[in-house]
């Protein structure tokens, strides 16, 4: 029963890591842009949700769309001032600039919100649904539902719409896509905004079940790196699967070992994957993969 409960919790926790990885996946896969600040954008969304909740006391579930809209604006702005000028300047400049963005977000949070952990209280987030002998935490259940919707929507967007065709074409070969009449710089912008929106979803959902402080973002860093690699670059179902796998590993290691060790075990898993199966769970070996193992 403990094992079953742990697996279930892993699924609930991992669903949201899947969305975290998906945002990273899109930026890496479509724009080939290195974003160190993705975790810090999640942090920004968490504080945004916190601020809105403090002002309105509204249910976090209702605040989600507002956070997403604001984050889309943030994404648009960042695309204009940061991503567009940096795309031609290469990996090194992108790393440095997004690291700077991460520091800016973290330290503004530190200045404005102080280093104390803060959280949202709701009447439902800490209560649990009983299913036989199993407990389902409502806050995390919301995460599962939202991430299922997000994954379905993203998959539909990429696979079934004209915009998705444009995104896939640009991802495969920007120049060729440009020749086919696709406005690739617009596609880049859309992809980046999409990834920031996904970071917003993660933040707005995660704040419900977990407190936030300015240094929280660094713990996302390992995960946002591990999930796309485990899933296989470019694979949306793989990303979902990898997120759940990471969640299960985390919960199992904190159930049977120690909660402090959970991210370490994930990292060990990641190294094993790099050595044994560098294309990830569902990635194809022929994919243009950036790891040279």
């Amino acid at each position: 029963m403990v094992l079953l409960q742990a697996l279930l919790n892993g699924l609930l926790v991992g669903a949201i890591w899947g969305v975290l990885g998906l945002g990273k996946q899109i930026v890496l896969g479509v724009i080939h842009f290195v974003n160190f600040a993705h975790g810090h954008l999640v942090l920004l969304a968490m504080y945004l949700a916190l601020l809105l909740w403090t002002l309105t006391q509204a249910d976090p579930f209702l605040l989600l769309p507002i956070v997403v809209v604001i984050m889309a604006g943030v994404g648009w702005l960042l695309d204009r001032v940061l991503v567009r000028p940096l795309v031609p300047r290469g990996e090194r400049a992108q790393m440095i600039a997004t690291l700077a963005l991460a520091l800016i977000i973290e330290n503004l949070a530190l200045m404005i919100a102080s280093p104390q952990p803060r959280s949202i209280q709701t009447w439902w987030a800490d209560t649990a649904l009983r299913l036989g002998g199993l407990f389902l935490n409502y806050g995390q259940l919301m995460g599962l539902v939202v991430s299922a919707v997000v994954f379905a929507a993203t998959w539909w967007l990429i696979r079934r719409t004209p915009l998705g065709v444009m995104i896939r074409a640009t991802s495969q070969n920007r120049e060729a896509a440009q020749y086919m009449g696709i406005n690739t710089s617009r596609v880049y912008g859309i992809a980046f905004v999409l990834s920031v929106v996904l970071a917003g979803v993660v933040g707005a959902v995660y704040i419900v079940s977990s407190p936030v402080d300015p240094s929280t973002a660094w713990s996302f860093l390992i995960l946002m790196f591990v999930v796309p690699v485990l899933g296989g670059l470019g694979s949306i179902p793989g990303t979902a699967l990898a997120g759940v796998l990471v969640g299960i590993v985390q919960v199992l290691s904190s159930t049977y070992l120690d909660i402090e060790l959970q991210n370490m075990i994930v990292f060990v898993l990641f190294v094993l994957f790099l050595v044994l199966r560098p294309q990830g769970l569902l990635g194809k070996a022929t994919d243009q993969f950036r790891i040279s193992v």
Partner: protein
Amino acid sequence: MLRTYSAPLVGIAILVVGGVYGATSESAANLVAMTAVWALMACGWNIISGYAGPISLGQAAFFGITAFITTVLFAKWNVTPYLGLIVGLVVSLLLATVIGLVTLRLSGLYFTLATLTIPLIMATLTRYFGYHEVARPYVGESLAYFQFNGSLAYYVVAAVLVAGALLFTARLEGTRTGRYFVAIRENERAAEASGVPTFRYKFVAFLLGSVFASLAGWVYSQLSFVFSPDEVYNPIVSVQALLIVLIGGPGTVLGPLVGALLVIPLGEFTAVYFSQLPGLNELMYAIVLLVVAFWSRRGLYPLLVGGARVLWIRLRPAGERPVKTPAVTDDAAQEGAARDSAEVGRST
């Protein structure tokens, strides 16, 4: 001979001046000691990322592990920090071997991210084993335990290490290893195709960098008296090394020292005068990083020099200003200005 070692000699002169300044007061001594520690740390990053190319953000791991081992050995078993340094260096090298063998196989971005996660994991592990804070026992002024009342003694040790690092870097530039490093940095594929065993040399650079980070961590732990995993394994430790070198000029001998001279006193200044704004320091770092990312590939230093050159040309009296065909003596300056403006032009 003089040509090879002119830069480190300038560096040593700067360090001597620093020592004289440090002798004036205890707060000055503390400032110069911290600056020297960070210059040493930056020298390590400069070798990996400034010369050999891959951008490591894991320097805090080696910095922290040596600080940790030295402090814990001293606090628990009364082991002198000199022995602690040797144990720390050995462990740190073993750690660098493992980390290097795994992560150096990854390409650019993935290497950086993987190295960034390692100090975070080590902080977790250290906390897991119960070391939230370890204080260094106080034994009074004692050479045997490397403990002094003033910071100036630590500065002298740190300055000697920095001087050694500068001489080493200058010597490295002329060797085959140093040239291989630069070849890898400029174009790894081309280097591999020309017969450079790129993996092996990146590994060597990684090990060298870890040694300097360990030495810096050792002096730092002796200077700060308290070991805390959240402090020494903080990502900002690695970022600060990167920042210093980027400002001073990556891939240059004096870069780390020049960068540390600019960054550390500025950091201390904001920490003292704007203590009510805890994040201001790092916020300023971030802005400098943005400037570097957008306007200069080679750090802030060439940008400053280029700007000064352009200004110098503009500000000269009209009679001396070169007309359409510049005089022979102006060639170098003109070329420099043209290159700088071309670089700025490319970024816009």
